[in-house]
């Protein structure tokens, strides 16, 4: 009879549990502290009489006008247009990998997609400034730094994200139906059209939402390529400024403190957009989380 042992063991087991739990709490607390900081620092703007100035269409810090609506529109326009290019491409790549293309090409293509995730954003930006922008400048007119340039490069940037999500979904669906589909004589493209695509609706929606979130959150591509004029763009060749680039620009130029406070409002908007994206994903999944 050794009654002491289990007690000792439980005691020895308690410390690591507590430490691990503590670490998890710290990680989770980070998210809340980010939110808390943004909210606290933008409070003077949101609560005071400056809200009207914030929600206006003019950014003229020297005249005391801190309207961020053009940047909100700019962010939405850019992210939306980038996704409009990236999403169909990603879908095409996934169809290609899952049977519409030859088997020998699927693996190298997928490795390239994975490699694209590791290419630094600033490298895409640099190459585009000196490769894509001159092309746009030559083909149309103006400086070339435009909504169009930023949207195209941003599309390349979010492409792998969207591909990887859709691919995960396709893999799960195909594991279920592939053999049955082959046994009734469906060609891979028929399997894709009649089974995989319709049965992947949820994953396809999640990919769209997460890809949009990723496009909305990128700073460097719009900062380097979109021209950064703080007004609503009239055409694809116009310059635009996103919330993210706005934050980077204003901090760099070091304006006075009222401008800073409006930045935190921009940050808060971006944070809330991230929250919406995540809640959107959760609702698409139907709360069936494991």
């Amino acid at each position, binding site marked *: 009879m050794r009654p002491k042992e289990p007690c000792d063991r439980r005691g020895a087991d308690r410390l690591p549990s507590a430490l691990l739990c503590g670490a998890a709490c710290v990680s989770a607390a980070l998210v809340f502290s980010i939110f808390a900081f943004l909210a606290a620092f933008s409070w003077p703007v949101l609560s005071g009489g400056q809200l009207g100035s914030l929600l206006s269409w003019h950014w003229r810090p020297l005249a005391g006008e801190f309207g961020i609506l053009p940047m909100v529109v700019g962010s939405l326009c850019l992210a939306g247009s980038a996704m409009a290019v990236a999403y169909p491409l990603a879908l095409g790549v996934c169809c290609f990998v899952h049977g519409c293309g030859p088997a020998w090409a699927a693996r190298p293509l997928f490795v390239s997609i994975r490699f694209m995730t590791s290419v630094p954003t600033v490298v895409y930006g640099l190459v585009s400034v000196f490769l894509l922008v001159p092309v746009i400048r030559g083909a149309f007119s103006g400086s070339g730094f435009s909504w169009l340039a930023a949207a195209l490069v941003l599309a390349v940037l979010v492409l792998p994200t969207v591909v990887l999500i859709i691919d995960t979904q396709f893999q799960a669906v195909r594991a279920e*139906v592939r*053999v*049955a589909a*082959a*046994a*009734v*004589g*469906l060609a891979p493209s*028929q399997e894709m059209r*009649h089974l995989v695509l319709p049965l992947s609706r949820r994953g396809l929606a999640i990919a769209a939402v997460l890809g949009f979130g990723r496009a909305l959150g990128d700073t460097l591509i719009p900062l380097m390529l979109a021209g950064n004029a703080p007004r609503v763009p009239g055409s694809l060749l116009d310059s635009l400024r996103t919330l993210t680039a706005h934050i980077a620009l204003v901090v760099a130029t070091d304006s006075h403190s009222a401008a800073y406070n409006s930045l935190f409002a921009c940050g808060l908007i971006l944070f809330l957009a991230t929250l919406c994206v995540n809640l959107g994903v959760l609702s698409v999944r139907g709360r069936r989380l494991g």
Partner: protein
Amino acid sequence: MAVAIRIERLSVDFSGKAVLRDASLEIPKGGPTFLLGRSGSGKTTLLRAINRLNECFPACRTSGRVVVNTADGAMEAYAPDTAVEVLRRRVGMVFQTPNVLPLSIARNICMPLEATQGMRGAEAEARMEEALREAQLWSEVRDRLRDPAVALSGGQQQRLCLARALALRPDILLLDEPTASLDFKAAQMVEELLGELRSRYTLIVVSHGLSQARRLAEYLFVLHDGGRVEELGKDVFRDKDALLTVLGDLL
């Protein structure tokens, strides 16, 4: 005796591991033809080699010849110009565990018809009803064709899979231990069904059950390890003791 399938020196390996080596046999029309063998002897692989379904699994290599005699003439299964989808429509398959598609009962049968033959509407519905009647499932599902197929019981799902294969009007049906995952009553029903289908289709059945083979088989092949295929005469496998003597070292 007309030959339905001729297999010559068929070898299959997965990731370099030989599962089947130089197997040769001729499967007659009608049947049922039963394939018996120890687990791991490659029965299922042999069955899947007939409609080239092994290719759905990773790192599979097949060599040898498989000739399938269909209503439209002989098909060389592994010839480069053979459309594998056409082959698979002529050679239907039912699996050990029922693998209904995650669609409604009706779509399980109509979707392949629509996708592969462009058949829709009344024509497809008529074909579906015919197939479901043939699989003796019609009376059980006629009122709930729009329900998801996964809601059916195991035996019903298996008969739905059978109906799905039959709707495509195959010449040959491959059945991979079709009763193994079913309870006694459902298994009995599927067995009876096989007895009826034998007059219209060439049936090839992989089975574990000796008694099932004795009851139903018209022809019987035994797969030995290493790829040797032995055909047993009817007089041998109808007689329980003789069969046990032959198979004693195997099962």
